[in-house]
């Protein structure tokens, strides 16, 4: 009964959200649309990072690199040949990319696949080992990617970056992709593979003793994670329409770590909420970075202050509120009903609602 009810409720909720998104896309002011789209992209980053870190316990810091690969591949595949020729004025673009122009969706998916292939170069050796090499290897991976982006002039246009990428990303694409990503991740972590991943996270030795193939499950989480991170990168490129290697500095990976930890490690719901709040708050805090005029009094803005606030908040969460927003609990209909039925008793149920 309850399972069927929940399924119906989920379907209704998805329909409602889809209608709302469509309505928003038609009517909402472009600035708000952009913020909401960006929320979905950051949510994808956070969800994918949560899969590898929160569920599998592998500290991968390669998200900036994943996003870069996805972004460049998608951008190069969706730009028109004329745009590409105009962009590559220092050195002509390699011939096999010059005349390709794909629709957005296939370009995104190809971007995701290429990201997986590239990320495996570092993932396979690092994940085969126990220990902490993955963090450094993946951080190094992002740096390699950035160095390659700067140096492979005929392929990536070097430090000049790509301009005039078609603005294909809209609310429906971004949230649709996020929905797809969450669906896959949720099915994965609820499956037997997901249980094995959690056992790897909690105790590698015990998991291996129980017959869990460590490498297989780590690499599975890593592949899914990098695939969707690549897609999110592609969405980002087609949203901001100008990319260069500096966009994908390793601090992007740090931001994603922060978002995920704040949302709660092991909670996809938490990642989405946290990423959306992060995007919105960063916009709300924008005034403190620009000059404020009160009459004749001028208060100079402090550039970079938003990130300081974010990192302080992140440390506070890590040190004093270790579970983050959601801990490892997800949003479920059952929990919602329980909450609605006895709103006062929810404190002693926290943690059990899964």
């Amino acid at each position, binding site marked *: 009964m309850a399972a069927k009810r929940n399924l119906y409720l989920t379907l209704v909720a998805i329909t409602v959200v889809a209608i709302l998104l469509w309505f928003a896309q038609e009517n909402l002011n472009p600035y708000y649309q952009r913020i909401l789209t960006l929320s979905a992209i950051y949510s994808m980053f956070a969800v994918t990072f949560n899969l590898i*870190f929160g569920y599998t*316990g592998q*500290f991968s*810091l390669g998200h900036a690199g994943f996003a870069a690969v996805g972004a460049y591949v998608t951008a190069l595949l969706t730009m028109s040949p004329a745009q590409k020729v105009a962009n590559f004025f220092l050195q002509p673009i390699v011939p096999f990319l010059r005349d390709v122009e794909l629709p957005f969706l296939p370009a995104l998916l190809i971007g995701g696949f290429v990201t997986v292939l590239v990320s495996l*170069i*570092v993932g396979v*050796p*690092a994940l*085969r*080992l*126990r220990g*902490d*090499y993955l*963090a*450094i*290897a993946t*951080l*190094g*991976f992002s*740096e*390699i990617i950035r*160095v*390659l982006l*700067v*140096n492979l002039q005929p392929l990536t246009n070097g430090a000049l970056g790509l301009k005039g990428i078609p603005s294909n990303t809209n609310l429906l694409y971004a949230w649709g992709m996020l929905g797809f990503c969450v669906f896959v991740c949720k099915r994965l972590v609820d499956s037997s593979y997901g249980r094995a991943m959690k056992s790897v*996270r909690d105790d590698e*030795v*015990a998991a291996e003793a129980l017959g869990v193939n460590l490498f297989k499950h780590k690499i599975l989480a890593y592949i899914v994670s990098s695939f969707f991170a690549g897609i999110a990168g592609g969405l980002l490129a087609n949203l901001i329409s100008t990319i260069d290697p500096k966009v994908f*500095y*390793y*601090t992007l990976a*740090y*931001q994603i*770590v*922060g978002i995920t*930890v704040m949302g709660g*490690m092991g909670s996809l719901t938490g990642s989405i909420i946290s990423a959306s709040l992060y995007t919105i708050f960063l916009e709300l805090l924008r005034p403190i970075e620009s000059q404020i005029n009160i009459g004749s009094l001028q208060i100079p803005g*402090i*550039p*970079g*202050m938003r*990130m*300081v606030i*974010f*990192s*302080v908040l*992140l*440390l506070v969460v*890590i*040190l004093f509120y*270790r579970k983050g927003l959601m801990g490892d609990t997800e949003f479920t209909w059952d929990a919602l009903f329980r909450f609605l039925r006895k709103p006062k008793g929810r404190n002693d149920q926290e943690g059990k609602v899964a």
Partner: protein
Amino acid sequence: MTFEAFMQNLMNGVSLGSLYAMIAIGYTMVYGILRLINFAHGDLVMLGAYWVFYGVAIFQLPWWVTFPIAILLTTLVGIIIERSAYKPLRNYPRINLFAAAVGVSFLLENLAIVIFGGRPKAFSRPGFLDSQIKIGNVTLVSYTLIIIVTAIILCALLIYIINRTKVGMAMRAISKDLETTSLMGININHIITIAFAIGSALAAAGGILWAVKFPQLNPLMGMAPGLKAFIAAVLGGIGNVWGAMIGGLLLGVVEIMLVALFPTMAGYRDAFAYAILILLLLFKPTGIMGEVQAEKV
């Protein structure tokens, strides 16, 4: 390549390698004791360089006052980080410590952007570091030699502390088994703080000399030396102080020589260290001096 050119490149490589080694020691000490990759270590390198910049440019202090103050301040920051961010998490899963290290690094970088400004700053070398030295036909800038000499002195001091003093013995004991060591009546909090202090001081010294060698400062400058020093530490065998020195030297020399032999590869110089890391993980993950450790359950 002529002999002179070879010697010149070799000296450059050794001096770069000494810098990597100095920074790598801080990583390896912390890792040996806490099993923590201290992502904030690279940012201490950045701090050390910036303190000197402000000491010289704003307060007009002579270098022999500025350098010790910069090292002291950075050490203080290192101790504060350890006490406030890492110590409360010591008994939690290691993954929390990781996140905390990233958080600290992120905070330091962003604070540096706000306080020091995001625009790169030019670092002016003290005169004695900038003169030309001629040995035979090989011309060197004096800082190349001074970096090497400083690194040797500091490393010798460190080896002495670790092998000949009670504090060093306690450190070695903690890296074998933290819990048992605390049962032996050793104040582990005290020792861990000292390890962080030594690591931070070396990072600051490395940062100052880094700024002497590459005289441009920016708030994210600590990342590249930090990452490469970590790779040097892994290369030598993580947790092993000798290994960190050897790994650092090797990485520095190979990096410089590669560019000297294949000038067209110069743009890829920074990617090279990471490629070494990946190969190393494939073939000899324990590093040159590392011992295979049995997994403890």
